[in-house]
């Protein structure tokens, strides 16, 4: 951190001083790579915010079934807390017969389950909505597929005996807001969602302790649903008769049941709560804006959907008007995880080439040309489209 800096971005004579001051106050900017080497650095992530730390994964780094821990995207509203200062406990209270306080060792003593599941920010792809809106302009890399290991919520709740009127479980993390007037990140889930086999309180990702920025030591896993439900740094669970109140449950993460345009107000009763993910695909190879030699080119990607649906097919098209051709789904096929796919294209003509991918799922959902606009920029799942240059 630095002493008072009296400069800021934008016009004015003090831009350089600002950059130095700001960079130092967010010491991680030391990590910025020069624009020349950034494109090729395998360790490069996209900085969306230094504080709170928000990192996007470059899409070509998602070109594997499991996303490596070092490539997991990072996102929170309130920033990772100093978990190092706590002897971690998870409390369970409210409408329960025996309130509990579990240490990490206690949680490790329960039966452990591993679930492979896609973690995706509900704002992933927000950058593509027009007109644009406030919020982080993720382009597609706020997503990951990983193996999550931990305890079933059901087992924890049954060990405490939750009351018959406890229709909701409230989750609170250790990320304290920057000011007493800032809302806490308190959210809730309905009991029948929490009791599902795949909903766990995880301590491991891909077999390793969940890193601090990704919610470690303990985070909630809600496979098939967007990441706003996957509470990070869980410290308190409360069994209650009603949903959680507060900004991050009742105002944020709501979307109109019927799409409306900008400037149209929607009554609360006409808003859904963002929950199950929609069907989506990303082209992970070739890299966007890269160059490839003419000939047979392997195009690779990932595809996933939400709720209990399964990806049924992925199609690839060359050119904006090109016909859709079915790609091959390869690799593991696990519920709540993504599929990897490949398609070999004959790219004979040199010059700029557009490649598109479109996934469909078992409910009949198909990726659209454009996702309906909503004021928060949630749920973008349009057909993926990249441009590459084919050379002779």
């Amino acid at each position, binding site marked *: 951190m630095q*002493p008072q800096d009296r400069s*800021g971005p934008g016009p004015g004579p003090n831009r350089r001083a600002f950059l130095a001051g700001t960079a130092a106050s967010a010491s991680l900017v030391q990590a910025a*790579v020069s624009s020349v080497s950034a494109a090729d650095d395998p360790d490069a*992530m996209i900085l969306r915010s230094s504080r709170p730390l928000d990192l996007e994964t470059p899409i070509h780094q998602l070109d594997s079934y499991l996303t490596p821990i070092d490539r997991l995207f990072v996102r929170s509203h309130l920033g990772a807390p100093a978990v*190092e200062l706590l002897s971690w406990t998870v409390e369970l209270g409210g409408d329960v017969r025996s309130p509990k306080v579990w240490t990490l060792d206690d949680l490790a003593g329960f039966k452990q389950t591993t679930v492979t599941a896609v973690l995706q920010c509900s704002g992933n792809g927000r950058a593509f909505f027009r007109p644009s809106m406030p919020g982080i302009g993720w382009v597609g890399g706020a997503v990951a597929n990983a193996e999550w290991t931990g305890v079933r919520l059901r087992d924890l709740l049954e060990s405490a005996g939750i009351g018959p009127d406890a229709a909701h479980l409230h989750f609170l993390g250790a990320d304290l807001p920057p000011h007493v007037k800032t809302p806490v990140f308190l959210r809730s889930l309905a009991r029948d969602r929490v009791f599902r086999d795949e909903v766990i309180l995880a301590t491991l990702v891909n077999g390793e302790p969940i*890193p601090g920025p990704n919610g470690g030591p303990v985070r909630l896993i809600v496979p098939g649903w967007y990441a706003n439900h996957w509470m990070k740094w869980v410290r308190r669970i409360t069994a209650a008769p009603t949903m959680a109140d507060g900004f991050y449950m009742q105002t944020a993460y709501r979307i109109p049941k019927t799409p409306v345009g900008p400037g149209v107000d929607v009554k609360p009763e006409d808003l859904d709560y963002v929950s199950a993910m929609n069907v989506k695909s990303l082209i992970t190879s070739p890299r966007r804006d890269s160059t490839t030699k003419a000939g047979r080119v392997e195009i690779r990607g990932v595809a996933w959907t939400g709720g209990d649906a399964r990806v049924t097919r992925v199609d690839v098209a060359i050119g904006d008007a090109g016909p859709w051709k079915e790609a091959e789904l390869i690799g593991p096929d696990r519920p709540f995880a993504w599929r990897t796919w490949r398609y070999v294209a004959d790219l004979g003509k040199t010059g700029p080439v557009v490649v598109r991918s479109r996934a469909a799922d078992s409910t009949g959902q198909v990726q659209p040309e454009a996702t309906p606009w909503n004021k928060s920029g949630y749920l973008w799942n349009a057909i993926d489209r990249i441009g590459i240059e084919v050379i002779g």
Partner: protein
Amino acid sequence: MMTRRRLAWLSVLLLALVPARADRRQDPAEDPEERAERLEMGRRTFTENCLICHGPEMIVQQRLTPAQWKAEVTKMVDWGAPLPADETDRLLDYLNATHPAGAAPGPPIPVRGREARASFQRPAPPRPSADQVDRGGPLFAQHCSTCHGPTARGGDLGQNLVLNRALLDETAFVAVVREGRHRMPGFSLVLDDRQVDAILAWLRARPIDAK
């Protein structure tokens, strides 16, 4: 002194932060020097108030209409941003001039993932001693609570310090307390090192919930 490495990332940030010049609103009647001064004042307001709680990237990557900027600033003030009321207009002028809707987005800012996460790999600090904690409480109350609140969870001018990751880096913490930062004054003439250490110990020992 600018090392080549620092120059490299400075140029990356520069590219990321420069908005499309063609879209800046111009009032033909305004004297260019007055305009530059007005925007400079807005820039200072931005730095001194907005950057208390978060880094600049989230803001400078936005491209918003005047109504959207106003709504965002209002929300931040409602959530505790200590923006003086009489500086709101100059802040909005600055944001609208430099990050307007329709301006080209800046290029993505690359960072090394390993280094971005480096601060999470540091060992936990030693447990504070009871003596330090006992001495730190009254010192915090006397010197810090006016701005940071009586339980250190944020007040009129200062942000929450409980479980704040700034508490993990003793050297940086001491430097900020000594020299100040944004709207925080420096306390080098008021507190000696032993007192600052005691305040840090008290803060590190704060329970997650205010009693």
